[in-house]
């Protein structure tokens, strides 16, 4: 009798496989973490985003338009520039240029495979970082062998005129924020915990620069209504709504001689249990910029209703019947006209969100469209 050999996966093989995959992924993870310093911060990612005097940082010959010049920002400390996508048919001129705030400086890329003044596949360099608000620029010159023809410094697939290829970069907003944060420095009120209350109610003001001692004064329409207010965190201040007539007030914080620049509107209610405003419809549902629109609903006050919209506040609106508010809507400095990417005129219905706020509360939201 001939013995048969069963080719099954033995438990010890399974465990070995799992351990191998785990170790491999752990090593991959560590390699990746070490290699990927910073956050992508390049800003030129489409063919049309490059000025005509420069070539594009995109690869027009791969079918994917991937970036040939990419930038990672490590906060404002360092900038890592990578040139080339690693293909052996790509030759990168080892000298490039970088410009930060007006000054071009030559820079040298390095890579693992170099022949003469050309780096094959992929090169890179780490340079100083940019500050928040600055735009950095880098130039590189990349040649690709496409079907035995060299294509260098391309702006498109025809690649008739070789040019230095440009990439630009800025600190991402998240990094930028970490470098220019107000912290506790600038006295500013951002927004309140609620926009409507009755005398005696407390409201928390969220902001920055509040003193931690009991030194803050609260101004309601420019008049000090509360003193000795203290913040535990420097970013929140709990105040009490003063005994003032119902209406809308501009609230600011004063510390020493400094008054917060921006005021916020807080409403003191009537306390008569009037129902909050409700919007049932807006007519017309769409119209032109500068046109007249009517908000229909209930709970509107005879005077001083605010329409809070996507593009600003329309203030102090009357409502004779308590059921409709009419206003002209033209919040823009210019007449808006829309086009498609080919510069062809296309009409677009720009949505405008609207809520109504008054001494009874804030309404639901409805939308009308501006045809632009």
């Amino acid at each position, binding site marked *: 009798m001939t013995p048969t050999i069963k080719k099954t996966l033995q438990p010890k093989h399974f465990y070995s496989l799992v351990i191998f995959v785990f170790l491999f992924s752990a090593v991959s993870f560590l390699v990746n973490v070490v290699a990927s310093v910073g956050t992508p911060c390049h800003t030129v990612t489409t063919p049309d*985003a490059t000025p005509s005097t420069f070539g594009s940082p995109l690869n027009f010959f791969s079918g994917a338009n991937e970036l040939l010049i990419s930038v990672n920002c490590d906060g404002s400390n360092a900038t890592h520039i990578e040139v080339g996508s690693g293909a052996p048919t790509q030759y990168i001129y080892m000298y490039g240029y970088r410009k930060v705030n007006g000054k071009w400086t030559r820079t040298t890329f390095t890579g693992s495979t170099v022949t003469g003044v050309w780096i094959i596949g992929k090169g890179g360099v780490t340079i100083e970082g940019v500050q928040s608000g600055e735009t950095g620029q880098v130039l590189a010159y990349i040649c690709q062998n496409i079907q035995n023809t060299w294509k260098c410094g391309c702006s498109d697939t025809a690649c008739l005129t070789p040019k230095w290829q440009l990439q630009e970069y800025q600190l991402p907003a998240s990094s930028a*924020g970490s470098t*220019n*944060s*107000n912290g506790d420095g600038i006295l500013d009120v951002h927004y309140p915990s609620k926009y409507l209350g009755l005398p005696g109610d407390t409201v928390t003001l969220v902001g920055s620069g509040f003193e931690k001692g009991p030194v803050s004064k609260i101004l309601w329409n420019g008049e000090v209504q509360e003193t000795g207010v203290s913040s535990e965190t420097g970013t929140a201040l709990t105040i009490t709504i003063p005994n003032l007539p119902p209406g809308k007030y501009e609230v600011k914080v004063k510390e020493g001689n400094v008054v917060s620049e921006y005021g916020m*509107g807080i409403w003191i209610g009537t306390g008569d249990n009037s129902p909050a405003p409700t919007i049932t419809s807006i007519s017309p549902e769409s119209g032109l910029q500068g046109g007249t629109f009517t908000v229909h609903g209930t709970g509107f006050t005879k005077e001083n209703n605010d329409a809070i*919209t996507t593009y*600003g506040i329309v203030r102090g609106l009357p409502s004779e019947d308590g059921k409709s508010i009419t206003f002209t809507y033209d919040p823009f400095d210019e007449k808006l006209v829309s*086009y498609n990417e080919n510069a062809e005129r296309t009409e677009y219905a720009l949505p405008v969100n609207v809520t109504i706020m008054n001494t009874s509360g*804030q309404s639901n939201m409805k939308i009308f469209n501006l045809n632009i």
Partner: protein
Amino acid sequence: MKKITALRHLLITALFVSCVVLGSFVVPKTTLALFLEGGRSQEASFCSCSVCFKIEVGSPKSGTFMYCPWFTRLYAHYNIFPNAWQLGKAYTYMTCLQISYPYCRTDGGGYLLTMTGTSHGGF
């Protein structure tokens, strides 16, 4: 026998974690970049060919952002214009295209907001 089962569970968990870690590298990193927006809206300008508004937002999470009504989800209190406080998320850089007849030209750009909520917007 219990020891072997526990070991098997441990190893299967390790395999699952490995797959998640490895899978995260398959997704292009640039698409994962997510930026926080948080500050006072300082300036808004219309990009006529991309039908978006380019918004300058101040600190603490400052930057230039693109509010595109056809893409950005807007939350209460719905005001993106200057003096309103913004708090949102953005990803990927987007150019602001302006009409310069007969072409559309690039006029800077910013990070495309996926969602943003706002304050009322001043007094």
